C-alpha cells in the first residue's frame, strides 16, 4: 500500500477554536476516499491544510512525501475543487476551461467538452449570472478533466440536481477506471456516494473518529429489533450506538455481529437489518456531539 497523503498529529487552531484536532491518517494511492462529517466539522480546513492553502498550527503533513506548503513540485499535481470557489470577476466558463489547460499538465480537453455537454453548461454566460448548480458544474468539470494525480472535491455539487449528481458519479467512476488517480471527496450526501468510496474518514469537531475501509464500515453495525425484553437480553453489555423504544418494542444499533450471534438473534425472534453508511455516521457524530455537550455542561 502506498500513501499519497500522510498526516500525523495535525492541529489547526483559529484563536480559541480547534478546527483540526490532532489528526493522524493516510490516504492510499489510486483510491477514492470520502472525508465525511457535519458542517463545521473541519472538512474544508483539513483540505486546505492538505493543499497548502492554509498553514498548520502543529503536526505533520506529507503529500507525495513532501510538505505541500508553497511546494510547486507537490501542488502542480494537485487540483482542489471547492463548493465555495470564487472565480475572477467577469469570468465566463470558457475562460476557466481555457486557462485550466495551462495549469494541469494532464488536462483532457475532449473530456471537458463532453462534460460541458453532459451538464448543459453555457460557456459564454458570465459566471455571476449562472445558477448555483451551473457554478458547481464548472468546478466538477475542472476537477474531473484536470486528471490531476491528486484531486480534492469539497462539497462539489451544491445546487446540482439528482441527474447532474448521478452524471458526476458515473463520469468519475468511468474516468477513474481508465485513469487511476487519488480522489478525496467530502460530502453530506453519504448514501449517494457510499458505493463510490473505497475508504472513509469521518471527522467530527476536528477529530478523525473513523478511518476505515468502506467495506469494513458497511458491515460494522447492525440494527436489532424485536420485543424489548428479547432485545435487552440479546445486547447484554454490548455498546449501543443508537436506541429507539416504542411501547414494548425496541430497535437498537450495535456493532459487528458474528455468524453465531446472528443465528442466536434469529432464534430469539429478533430481526436484523444492516445499517447504511449514512445512518452509521449520523449516529456516531450525533452521539459524539451530545457527549461533548455534556462535557461542556459539566
Amino acid at each position: 500500500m502506498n500513501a499519497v497523503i500522510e498526516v500525523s498529529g495535525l492541529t489547526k487552531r483559529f484563536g480559541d477554536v480547534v478546527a483540526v484536532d490532532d489528526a493522524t491518517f493516510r490516504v492510499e494511492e489510486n483510491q477514492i476516499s470520502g472525508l465525511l462529517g457535519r458542517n463545521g466539522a473541519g472538512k474544508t480546513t483539513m483540505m486546505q491544510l492538505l493543499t497548502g492553502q492554509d498553514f498548520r498550527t502543529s503536526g505533520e503533513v506529507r503529500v507525495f512525501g513532501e510538505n505541500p506548503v508553497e511546494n510547486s513540485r507537490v501542488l502542480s499535481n494537485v487540483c482542489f475543487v471547492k463548493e465555495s470557489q470564487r472565480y475572477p470577476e467577469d469570468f465566463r466558463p470558457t475562460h476557466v476551461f481555457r486557462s485550466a489547460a495551462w495549469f494541469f499538465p494532464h488536462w483532457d480537453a475532449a473530456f471537458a467538452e463532453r462534460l460541458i455537454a453532459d451538464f448543459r453548461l453555457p460557456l459564454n454566460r458570465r459566471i455571476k449570472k449562472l445558477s448555483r448548480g451551473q457554478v458547481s458544474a464548472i468546478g466538477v468539470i475542472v476537477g474531473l478533466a484536470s486528471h490531476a494525480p491528486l484531486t480534492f472535491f469539497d462539497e462539489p455539487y451544491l445546487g446540482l440536481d439528482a441527474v447532474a449528481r448521478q452524471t458526476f458519479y458515473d463520469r468519475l467512476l468511468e474516468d477513474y477506471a481508465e485513469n487511476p488517480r487519488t480522489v478525496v471527496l467530502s460530502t453530506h450526501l453519504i448514501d449517494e456516494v457510499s458505493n463510490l468510496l473505497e475508504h472513509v474518514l469521518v471527522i467530527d469537531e476536528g477529530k478523525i473518529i473513523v478511518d476505515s475501509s468502506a467495506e469494513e464500515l458497511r458491515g460494522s453495525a447492525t440494527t436489532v429489533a424485536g420485543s424489548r425484553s428479547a432485545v435487552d437480553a440479546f445486547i447484554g453489555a454490548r455498546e449501543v450506538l443508537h436506541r429507539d423504544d416504542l411501547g414494548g418494542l425496541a430497535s437498537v444499533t450495535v456493532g459487528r455481529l458474528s455468524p453465531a450471534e446472528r443465528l442466536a438473534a434469529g432464534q430469539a425472534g429478533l430481526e436484523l437489518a444492516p445499517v447504511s453508511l449514512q445512518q452509521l455516521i449520523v449516529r456516531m457524530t450525533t452521539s459524539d456531539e451530545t457527549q461533548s455537550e455534556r462535557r461542556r455542561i459539566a
Partner: protein
Amino acid sequence: MTTITLSESASTTHRPAANRILAVFRLHFVNPYTVVIIPWLIMLFIFLVNYAIWWLIDANVQDAADRSDAQQGLGWSGASFYIFVYLMVVAIQAINFTFPFAQGYGVTRRDFYLGTSLAFVALAAGYAVALTVLSYIEEATGGWGLGGQMFTAVYFGTGEWYTRLATFFLILAFFFFVGAAIAAVYVRWRTNGMLIFFGLLTVLLVGLAALATFTQSWPAVGEWLVENGANGVILWSLVPTVLAAVTGYFVLRRATPRD
C-alpha cells in the same frame, strides 16, 4: 506500508517554474475585459468629458489673450490621473479575484505573485506605449483641434519620446505595485488589515509633514523637487514602487484564500 514520493509516482509531473509563472501571467489576460477593455472605456469617457470642456472654452472665450491663458491652464490637466488611479484598482481586483482561483489550480503564492508582477509590468508597458502615442497625436492635432491637453500635461508627455515612455511607465508601475501591496494586505487580513494599513499610512504621511514643518525643511523639500525636476521625481518613484512590490510579496506569502 510505504509512502509514495513524487519521483516514484508514474503519473506525477513537474513543470519548470517558468511555465507555471507564465501560466499565471496568461491567466490575467484570458479575459481581457477587466484589464484592458474597461480601462480603455473609462479613458474614452474621461477624454470625451474633457473634450466637451475644451469645446466650451473654445466656443465661449473670444479674446485671444484670454483663450491662450485658459489653454495654458489646461496644461495642468489632472485628467490622466483618473486612469492611473483606475489602473491601481485594476491591480487590486486582479489579485483579489485571481488569487483564490489560482490556489485551487495548485499554484504556489510565490509563482502567483511573480506571474502577476510580470503581468503588471507588461500592462504598465502597454499602457505607457499607448499614452505616448496619444501624446504625439495630441500635439500633432493641436490639442485635438481645441488646444486641449490630456496626454501632454506639464508633468509628463513632453520631451523626447523615450522620456515620455519612461515617465508613463514609471508612473503606471508605481500605481500597479502600490495596488498589488494593498491587495495583498486585503487578501491576507481583510477589512481589519485595510483599516490598519490606511491608518498607519496616514500617520506616516502626517508624521513626515510634521517632521518637515518642525525642522523647517519645507524649503529644502521644495528645492529638492525643483532640483530633480518632474523627470527626477518620477525616477525617484522607483523607490516606493520597489518597496511596495517587495512588501506585497512577503504579505501574500502567508495569505490564505477565504470565501
